[in-house]
């Protein structure tokens, strides 16, 4: 492949990747892929890709430019020609370059969606999912007003508080997606969230059981706001929070669909 075409393709692909991440950042969709705490890293990636793109683009001009330079011409020119001849087949093949376009293709062709109840089938949902046992985090969950606690806060309390009695009967008000778990009795569903530490690669689903008020029919993956007093049931030998729902309202998927332990 001609070096100039190769460089130009590099420029296009790098700019494309940078723009793709930038668009995810602007639309807030970056939250669907990585923990919000690492978003500054993605900014580094955007800037780095753009810098590489510009370098690739300019390198073309530099080659043409150096032609005109008196002092370089004597020894550098034949050398440079030789190099570009040697480099062209070796730096990368067309197939190789286009693998770099795969993230763009996947990102654009498959509609962006955060992990949802569909992914629970592979990842599993639990009430005693691996959670950070850090004391500080846990006391934050305890100290919140009961209506402000997220699914994650409740799960932490149920996992790490030795005595649950002060919490039973408190009113929960949590948002999550509906997931019908096979181990739940009829008329119940899980209100679930994905918790992610670093990026979606380590996501795990957590959920609270919900006893549905009569007549409420919800399909998997609907986002709901569940309110009602909290009780405890045993699932798989683990104490799991159960909301005796007084109301279940359908809501929009939150802009930040994940929780961060």
């Amino acid at each position: 492949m001609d070096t100039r075409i190769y460089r130009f393709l590099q420029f296009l692909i790098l700019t494309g990747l940078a723009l793709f991440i930038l668009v995810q950042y602007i639309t807030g969709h970056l939250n669907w892929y990585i923990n919000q705490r690492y978003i500054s890293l993605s900014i580094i990636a955007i800037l780095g890709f753009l810098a590489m793109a510009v370098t690739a683009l300019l390198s073309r001009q530099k080659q043409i430019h150096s032609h005109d330079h008196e002092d370089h011409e004597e020894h550098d020119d034949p050398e440079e020609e030789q190099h570009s001849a040697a480099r062209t087949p070796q730096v990368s093949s067309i197939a190789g370059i286009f693998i770099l376009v795969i993230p763009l293709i996947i990102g654009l062709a498959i509609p962006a969606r955060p992990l949802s109840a569909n992914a629970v089938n592979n990842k599993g949902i639990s009430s005693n999912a691996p959670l950070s046992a850090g004391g500080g985090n846990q006391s934050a969950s305890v100290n919140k007003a009961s209506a402000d606690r997220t699914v994650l806060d409740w799960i932490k309390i149920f996992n790490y508080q030795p005595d649950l009695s002060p919490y039973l009967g408190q009113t929960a008000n949590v948002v999550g997606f509906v997931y019908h778990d096979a181990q739940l009795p009829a008329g119940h569903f899980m209100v679930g969230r994905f918790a992610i530490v670093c990026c979606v690669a380590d996501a795990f689903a957590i959920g609270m059981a919900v006893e549905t008020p009569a007549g409420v029919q919800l399909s998997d993956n609907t986002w709901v706001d569940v309110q009602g007093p909290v009780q405890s049931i045993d699932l798989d030998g683990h104490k799991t929070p159960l909301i005796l729902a007084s109301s279940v309202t359908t809501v929009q998927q939150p802009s930040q669909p994940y929780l961060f332990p």
Partner: protein
Amino acid sequence: MLRTEKQKPLIQFFFFFLLFFILVFFIPKFFTGNPATILNDRLSTFATVFLGIFIEAAPFLFLGTLASGIVEVFLDRDAMVKIMPKQALLSSLIGSSLGLIFPVCDCGVIPLTRRLFRKGFPIPAGIAFLLSAPILNPIVIISTATAFGIGRVLFLRIGVGVAIAIITGLIFSTVKTPWELLRPTPWITVEDVASHEAHDQDTFWEKMRQSFLISTDEFFEIGRYLIIGSMIAAAMQTFIPQSALLNIGKGPLLSVVIMVALAIILSICSTVDAFVALGFSSVFSLGSILAFLVFGPMVDIKSSLLLIRVFRKKTVMYLILIPLLLSILAGLIINFYIPS
């Protein structure tokens, strides 16, 4: 001629992956539910996980290749040969602690190691650097200390990681030249893109420009493997139910094996894996957490793809097997001899 030979492994990988993809997404689900919806759901999960790994790893790979470019342009080969000791133990000791100066993670360290070899870095030092830099580096130390506090997990992670790196470095010290380890890839000409030793008179900015150009080419070379590796990791995550894996067993031996398997599948960056490990620390044994924290940065799906690109098959086999066995061994010793 030369060209087609070099492309072959990558194409093989790609077809292997396509086949894998088809198996994962189609066959198991034809029997339950509407294939179209299921396919759609799986695809969407796959895409999200793949983009997650890629977006998270991309800045680190960029920083790694940039470091490699800077080493290439600014570091003088003769000086390097002079400074580095020839003695194997000393040289792997130095190599294993160089991560403190080059804070690269498991994606970035691979191109950088290759570059250091080219600059005359001794073999034991390079191998020790390759395995230890993703653990013994300031960013990883800070993130591990943040997750677990300054305590035994942090010290064990560094101690065991560096020990494995040095042992592996020493094992490799019988090798005479790096060319026995490295695949004869086109990278040698990457330097021709811009830099020459003759260009000593270049200004700083010209040198930076050259560093960036080298980093660009290297990003394109290594990035492909990062992408294919992320795709395989994402497909495996979409396919293998993690909950099943975690429920297999929590005994002193099984837990170590499972956490090592998890480290391989998750393919997360070593700079953040401490937070992930923290999540498992309440359910899994100390030895297994340690094995996760030590082996994960050395080998996982995405980095083994990068290793395959850079090193010969036999080298890659040793680079995976030696740390694997030593990490499991360390995990077992910790489980049996250190009370939790």
